[in-house]
């Protein structure tokens, strides 16, 4: 505002600046440094050059397994969750009387889903004689050993996170509701079917929120910790041993801070590369209203 010192705004953002330097920027750089050291918390960090990374990529079977499981987890969970969230949002985006009731019912799991209590619940409903197997028995399906089989254990965590599709859905729904209705009318008069309208009008118009959800959900999925820590404890046979779990164990159980930092940096670089790819590709598929590109 006129007349004020041009530094006045800096005073207001100063808490952020201090916090950024102390709790984000400094730790960010420090973890990069630590990843080149050997540090057990007791002595001082000892510089070891590329040794941690060399071990990670050449000799560490646990890392190979953990990385593979993490990628499988992210690339199944994120698309499943987003497609499901979009599907429900589309179904809800109709002049239904009970829209608010449904929106609430669907949103409750994402409010609670991060809670340890829900992870505990998941342990029980997927137990051998738990709710899911009892439900399947009603349809004559043989009980499944969800946590005992490396092929299904990870899927229970995927299901937990898909169950929390509510916040992505609310964002989709808000976007769908802001689409100009006259576009639909024009298309319907021109004889477009429902699928065509969805595919060629609705979908392009909501690409910005698809993009937003995609990025946020991916970054989040790569950091999944509570699910595998509580529900499956990384097992069986490390089939749910996601990288954040491995980092936690290395850092806070083995106290190998240098090695844990190296794993964290590999995870960070993967997330960053994927995010950059997403941003770069968004020029080709994300449509911003008012943009002149066709």
């Amino acid at each position, binding site marked *: *505002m006129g007349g*004020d010192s*041009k530094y006045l*705004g800096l005073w*207001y*953002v100063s*808490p*952020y600046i201090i*916090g*950024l330097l102390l*709790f*984000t920027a*400094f*730790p*960010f750089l*420090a*973890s990069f440094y*630590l990843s080149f050291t050997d540090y057990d918390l007791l002595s001082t960090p000892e510089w070891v050059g590329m040794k941690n990374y060399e071990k990670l990529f050449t000799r560490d079977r646990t890392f190979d397994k953990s990385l593979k499981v993490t990628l499988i987890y992210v690339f199944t969970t994120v698309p499943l969750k987003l497609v499901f969230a979009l599907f429900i949002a589309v*179904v*809800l*985006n*109709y*002049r*239904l009387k009970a829209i608010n009731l*449904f929106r*609430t019912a669907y*949103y*409750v*799991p994402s*409010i*609670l889903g*991060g*809670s*340890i*209590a*829900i992870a*505990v619940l998941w342990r*029980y*409903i997927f*137990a051998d004689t738990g*709710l899911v197997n009892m439900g399947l028995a*009603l349809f004559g399906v043989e009980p499944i050993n969800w946590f005992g089989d490396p092929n299904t254990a990870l899927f229970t965590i995927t299901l937990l996170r898909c*169950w929390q599709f509510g916040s992505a859905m609310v*964002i989709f729904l*808000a976007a769908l509701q802001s689409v100009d*209705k006259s576009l639909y*009318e024009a*298309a319907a008069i021109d004889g477009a079917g429902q699928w065509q309208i969805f595919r060629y009008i*609705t979908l392009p118009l909501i690409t910005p929120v698809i993009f937003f959800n995609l990025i946020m959900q991916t*970054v989040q999925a*790569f950091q999944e*910790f*509570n699910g595998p*820590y509580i529900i499956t404890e990384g097992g069986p046979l490390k089939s749910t041993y996601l990288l954040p779990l491995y980092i*936690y164990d290395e850092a*806070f159980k083995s106290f190998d801070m240098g090695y844990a930092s190296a794993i*964290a940096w590999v*995870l960070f670089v993967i*997330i960053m590369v994927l*995010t950059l790819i997403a941003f770069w590709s968004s020029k080709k598929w994300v449509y911003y209203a008012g943009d002149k590109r066709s």
Partner: protein
Amino acid sequence: MVSYSELPNPAHNTGDAPTQLELKLRRKARINSALRYTVLAVIGLIMVYPLIWLVGASFKTNSEMFSSPGFWPSEPTVQGYIDGWKTSTPYTFGHFFLNSLWIIIPKTIGTAISCTLVAYGFARFDFPGKNILFATVIATLLLPNVVTRIPQYLLFRDIGWLDSFLPLWVPSAMAGDAFFVFMVIQFLRAIPRDMEEAARVDGATTLQTLIFIVVPMLMPALISVCLFQFMWTMNDFLGPLIYISSVEKYPVSLALKLSIDTTEAFAWNQILAMSVLALTPSLVVFFMAQKYFIEGISTGGVKG
């Protein structure tokens, strides 16, 4: 998707009997909405059933719990609540709830105040380096915590904050949760400045303008911030797991994990009963203020 009932209906304009085509379209619209209701109701039921089952199961005896998928207990008992409340530690579950509250309240207040100041700075002032600083807000939004966690731990160890609530409070009180900062900035940018400018003309300082003009208008956004911070802190597990080591200071999330580890394998109803209690505050808060949650998500999300 488009609904046929939204199309202009010539029958209303002319008063003629509906044509064959219109009847067909209307029937199609009815089937369409019946189909939607069915899909939504079935999926909704599947989604909510685990929660309903959880509540029912917490009143069941241990032997009944794994014998039927129904949620209604045949011999309701509160034994699970009584035993679970006592816990295997010297403290009751109530103690852990107070700990959670003692983490949440200062953290939430700190978040609200710092986000207000910082968002005001970003949305209403020009200063050197503003664009770069704002870019760091977005970058932090996307920065995975996993990469900063270890040095943060070392920092808090070196200044002697381990096993206290300070590592959980202080970063948030320094506007460390980029999501909230971003949300309040977006909200503030959409508010017209007329009232603030009038107050400045009348001689109010920027701080007075902030407190008496901006904050009241920001209230919906700040309530959203507080509610989300309440939920997330209530659910937070990894933070306390790393920083809190003495059982005396455990919040509910750690106490629940402890009860899984220490309760005998057959005492499921205790654990489920305490899970119900752990979820209750979040559920109550959500139902009291769900409007703010939905709005919060939409502001923080769509405009991103």
